[in-house]
């Protein structure tokens, strides 16, 4: 600590107890020189790492996250521009290069100590966490994090700091007190002397100044841009066909590659017969990727046809015998064994649930399960790579470009500076594009053909069968009811434990709770899937609470409401959804309503489904969604995320299922991995509750978890049948 500057010492002192701060705190002024070389162009003045003022007094915001449709390229500039008092009409954005200086320090902070960072230590904290993030190589777009993390801790702070720097410079120039200067629409005004100048007039002087230690952020009543409906920057290019996705990259002399990996995960290539393939028109090269093979040819179609002619055999192991049935059987056995041996892994414990359950006369038990799911982004995985001039250059849509860069450097023994990542629009992410398999394949193919750019495009079949799946989960729930019908004990045993830790927790006041898990790994590779483990657990817990309400003979809305007396914020969300949907309203024969509430990524969402079962099959007519993210920085953007999350979750609930047979994935394309389409899409009504801007929740994911239980609870309300396994299309 002796080497820390006085300011760094003072500002970090309050956090030392957390034990998380390592390295030397960097003050903001120290960061600009290296960054300037990367993003400063002629005639531009870099005010700080997040924003540039251009010679024409327009504002360019540097966004360190990938755009995959969540609107981050617009909402982050909104947050910065509002704090800066910039003229929105002149604001544009650019995506930050995949450089360590842009590491998502905020994601580290949020995970390391959620919502604890006090406002007074803002910018020194940024410096400290930048170091940690660099170590961890994060520039991640995920975890519904961009707005609540980068936006709050970085964009708003940077915007406010920029404004204060400019005012500081103007005060010096005009020789007037700081507090007599106001900023508006990218101009500074000194009303007393009737002076006004554009921001750019002070940009150079401001860049030479040390940043403020504590830039003052606006309160919601002062917001001019935040919370408003602003048209997204990326939309015009997405309606005229000019938006460039990974698959659209075009390089001089580029060749095309198609790949096929071992159908059973973990198997490797043991023999290749490429005689027939090599005779095909346009064939250039076959590459053994170890986990599979790739064929490079002059055109995509030639590569695909040649690949089809290659005969490959793979090593085989025990996984060949695995199936979806054997996997759930294994889960059940692991869970039984854990209980028998007393090997439960504790997740959450309060009171003594086991004891209460053992002594209760009114115990309800149920077993739930959900299958693996693929992401099925509309744009199949692809990567263009080019090994040239001692460097490896990559073009792809990536949720984690810095991580990929480090991985490629390590895997292929390049200096990190010799790996260049060009991140482009993602044709859907949902967690899939945080994984590293496809850029590694792309790099291997390009390195096999040095000097030639190679574009690898996966088939839809490859995309479906070589995913990192949402894990299948099984949950055994048990609860006891007191005399008033309310639960006094809740036990939940599930398999397996993944991220985030709080996914299985319930918002309800139940005095005795025991949540525990048992690990039971399979060979199926898994990864983050929109809202991570919240979709599985929300289905379990929100269905089971509905079962308890039914057992108690209490209206399921009222039951939840009564269990939320300690959490008025959640209660308000629930109440809003009920009001929106006119809960309990008279409905035609064969219709019914279902409700569910779940908190994920710090946003609370309640959804009500109006379901029509009059034909015997479920038709979701309408979904009402009430959501409290703290503050929705872009009102329409947030609504769009809720709509999107609901359809994504509804697709999964109704149809989603990846089956395993002989160790491999059965489903292959949209004909057997079915998607919700226009003709069965419900209308969706969203109401935002802005309860406070200092503890923001995410937008990209929290709309998804409540929809499956809201749907199945509606099915129960109409038919009396409790759906405990998904998808509904198979288990109703």
């Amino acid at each position, binding site marked *: 600590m002796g080497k820390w500057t006085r300011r760094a010492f003072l500002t970090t002192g309050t956090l030392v107890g957390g034990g998380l701060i390592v390295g030397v705190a960097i003050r903001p002024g120290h960061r600009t020189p290296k960054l300037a070389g990367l993003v400063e162009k002629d005639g531009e003045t870099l005010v700080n790492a997040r924003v540039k003022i251009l010679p024409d007094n327009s504002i360019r915001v540097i966004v360190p996250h990938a755009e995959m449709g969540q609107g981050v390229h617009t909402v982050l500039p909104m947050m910065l521009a509002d704090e800066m008092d910039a003229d929105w009409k002149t604001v544009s954005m650019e995506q930050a290069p995949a450089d360590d200086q842009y590491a998502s320090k905020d994601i580290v902070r949020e995970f390391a100590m959620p919502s604890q960072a006090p406002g007074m230590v803002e910018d020194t904290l940024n410096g400290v966490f930048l170091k940690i993030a660099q170590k961890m190589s994060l520039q991640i777009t995920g975890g519904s994090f961009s707005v609540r993390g980068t936006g709050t801790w970085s964009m708003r702070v940077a915007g406010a700091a920029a404004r204060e720097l400019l005012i500081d410079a103007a005060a010096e120039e005009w020789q007037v007190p700081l507090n007599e200067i106001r900023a508006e629409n990218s101009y500074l005004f000194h009303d007393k002397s009737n002076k006004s100048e554009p921001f750019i007039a002070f940009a150079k002087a401001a860049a030479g100044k040390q940043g403020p230690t504590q830039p003052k952020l606006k309160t919601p009543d002062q917001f001019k841009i935040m919370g408003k409906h602003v048209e997204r920057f990326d939309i015009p290019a997405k309606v005229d066909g000019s938006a460039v996705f990974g698959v659209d990259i075009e390089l001089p002399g580029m060749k095309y590659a198609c790949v096929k990996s071992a159908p059973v995960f973990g198997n490797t290539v043991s023999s290749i017969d490429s005689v027939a393939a090599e005779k095909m028109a346009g064939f250039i090269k076959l590459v053994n990727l170890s986990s599979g093979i790739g064929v490079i040819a002059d055109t995509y179609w030639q590569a695909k046809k040649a690949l089809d002619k290659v005969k490959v055999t793979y090593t085989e192991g025990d996984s060949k015998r695995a199936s979806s049935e054997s996997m759930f059987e294994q889960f059940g056995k692991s869970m039984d064994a854990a209980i028998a041996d007393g090997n439960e892994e504790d997740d959450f414990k309060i009171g003594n649930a086991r004891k209460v359950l053992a002594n209760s006369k009114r115990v309800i038990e149920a077993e739930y399960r959900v299958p693996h799911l693929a992401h099925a982004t*509309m744009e199949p995985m692809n990567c263009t790579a080019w090994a040239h001039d001692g460097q490896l250059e990559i073009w792809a849509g990536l949720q984690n470009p810095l991580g990929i860069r480090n991985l490629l450097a390590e895997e292929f023994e390049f200096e990190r500076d010799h790996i260049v990542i060009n991140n482009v629009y993602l044709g859907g992410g949902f967690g899939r594009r945080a994984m590293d398999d496809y850029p590694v394949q792309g790099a291997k193919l390009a390195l096999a053909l040095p000097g030639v750019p190679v574009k690898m495009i996966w088939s839809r079949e490859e995309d479906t069968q070589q995913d990192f799946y949402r894990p299948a989960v099984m949950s055994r729930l048990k609860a006891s009811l007191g005399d008033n019908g309310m639960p006094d004990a809740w036990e939940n045993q599930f398999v397996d434990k993944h991220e985030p830790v709080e996914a299985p927790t319930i918002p309800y006041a139940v005095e005795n709770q025991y949540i525990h898990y048992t690990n039971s790994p399979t060979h199926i590779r898994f990864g983050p899937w929109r809202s991570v483990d919240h979709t599985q657990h929300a289905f379990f817990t929100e269905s089971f609470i509905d079962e308890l309400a039914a057992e108690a003979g209490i209206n399921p809305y009222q039951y939840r409401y009564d269990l939320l007396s300690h959490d008025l914020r959640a209660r308000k969300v629930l109440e809003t959804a009920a009001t929106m949907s006119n809960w309990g309203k008279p409905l035609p024969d064969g219709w019914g309503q279902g409700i569910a509430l779940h908190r994920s990524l710090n946003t609370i969402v309640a959804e009500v489904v109006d379901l029509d079962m009059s034909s015997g099959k479920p038709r979701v007519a309408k979904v009402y969604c009430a959501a409290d993210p703290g503050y929705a920085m872009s009102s329409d953007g947030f609504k*769009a995320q809720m709509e999107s999350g609901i359809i994504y979750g509804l697709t999964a609930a109704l149809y989603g299922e990846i089956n395993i047979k002989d160790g491999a994935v059965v489903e292959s394309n949209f004909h057997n991995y079915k998607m919700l389409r226009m003709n069965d899409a419900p209308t969706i009504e969203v109401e935002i509750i802005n309860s406070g801007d200092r503890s923001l929740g995410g937008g990209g994911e929290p709309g998804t978890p409540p929809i499956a239980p809201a749907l199945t609870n509606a099915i129960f309300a109409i038919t009396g049948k409790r759906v405990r396994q998904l998808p509904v299309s198979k288990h109703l």
Partner: protein
Amino acid sequence: MLEITVNDVVHQLDVEPDTPLLWVVRDELKLKGTKFGCGMAQCGACTVHLDGVPIRSCVTPISSVSGRSITTIEGIGEPSEAKQVAKLHVVQQAWIEEQVPQCGYCQSGQIMSAVALLEKNSQPTDADIDQAMAGNVCRCGMYGRIRTAIHSASAKLANEIILTPLDKQPSEVSANATTAEGS
């Protein structure tokens, strides 16, 4: 050598005859707006018009459209002399107004299907939209916005008709237009 017309431009092509139209449009003609999604006519991302009719270019061998006229997303706007770039089609404008796209990958296909629908049926009902758009998957789930945007484009088309001089306007069109506007 094959000949096709794409967005009113005639092209002579030397490609294998079984190559899907999709890859010819994207990689030979460098029109990247048309997307690859599934390769088996299941998702609609590759939708283009063949003589005005929407087709899935991923399963259409180039040889089967020899001598025919293709329109892609790059060709639906009206050419504008003033701006050098094509003026957006009314459907594209509605897509911006309703803020339809999220990731945007499927949207060229969605727009091509919507344009074809409105050319055939300028006042579609919800059921018409269900039928015409069911072949286009949007993984970001923007179906509600797509529906609204189609209705809005439809209303705009009706208003354009209203703006024509009254003496040239058939009365039943006017009545339809009023209905659409009010709906």
